[in-house]
């Protein structure tokens, strides 16, 4: 499992969608990171699953960068054959956090999207049953994992 296949994998993904993919580099052995613009998000995801073989969804989460006023949504995908983890990222401006849901591509992402919605407030359009996963139903304390979340808040 030499590093060569990760490098050329990153190249092939870049070549397949030159305009949509912002950056696609190899972080470390067996770690490939692909960052995509929001509008080509669904289409590149489908091609990743169909012709690149990333069929095993691992998990999904977000990171909040208030200083650069952006939020990055990350999906982790595993290639069962090459055993490579691809972090499929998209940068969202902090004011309108909308994203097409990936449950159409990988069905198992529905739990992770519900959790990210609870924690960060990202709207996933087209999600089958968007009900809170982890936070209590009577929670009105804002989105906990954002950097500007001030302590507890229920009432």
């Amino acid at each position, binding site marked *: 499992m030499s590093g060569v296949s990760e490098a050329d994998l990153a190249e092939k993904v870049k070549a397949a969608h030159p305009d949509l993919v912002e950056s696609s580099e190899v972080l470390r052995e067996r770690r490939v990171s692909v960052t995509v613009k929001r509008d080509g998000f669904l289409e590149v995801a489908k091609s990743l699953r169909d012709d690149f073989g990333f069929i095993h969804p691992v998990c999904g989460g977000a990171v909040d960068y208030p200083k650069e006023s952006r939020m990055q949504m990350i999906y982790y995908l595993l290639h069962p054959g090459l055993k490579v983890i691809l972090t499929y990222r998209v940068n969202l401006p902090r004011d309108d956090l909308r994203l097409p849901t990936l449950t159409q591509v990988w069905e198992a992402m529905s739990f992770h999207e519900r959790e990210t919605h609870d924690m960060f407030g990202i709207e996933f359009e087209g999600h089958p049953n968007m009900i809170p996963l982890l*936070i*209590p139903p009577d929670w009105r304390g804002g989105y*906990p994992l954002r950097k500007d979340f001030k*302590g507890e*808040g229920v009432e």
Partner: protein
Amino acid sequence: MQEETKEVKRNFDFIPGSGAVYGLIDYVAGWSRKYSIWPIHFVTGCCGPEFMQTSGAEYDMERLGVLPFASVRQCDCIMVVGVVSRKMAIRVKYLYEQMGEPKYVVAVGACPTGKGPFYDSYAAVAIDEYVPVDVYIPGCPPRPEAIIHGMMLLQEKIKNEKRIGVRRE
């Protein structure tokens, strides 16, 4: 734990022999409740494995008559084992209300007593905001001997309780 046994006014105090009769009833009731505490099979957090070890073979909780039971109707003690989140605390409150009258609550572990290692978490909660607690058992997770010692303290408390015919002002 020597609680000062304060005098409790009873309904039939005026009858001369009633003190002895009340004493007898208290003794029998205390003895029977002491040796048959049925905690509910309800683990709310990460001290679960330790709770299982105490009802296991090495530290057998059933020697004291403590038999974890399935349904809430027949139980008389909730052992809140482990961290309690907000969503779970509401369920603990429902359970507390569904139990028959002589009911007790034991908080097992540092988290139900005071949120333990998650002191600054937005979701964990201390249980005594929701239900009155009788015995607190510290430790994260508390050792089986500590849990059994907690149950013995509860037994001591039940033995000295005076419940029959107490006049409520």
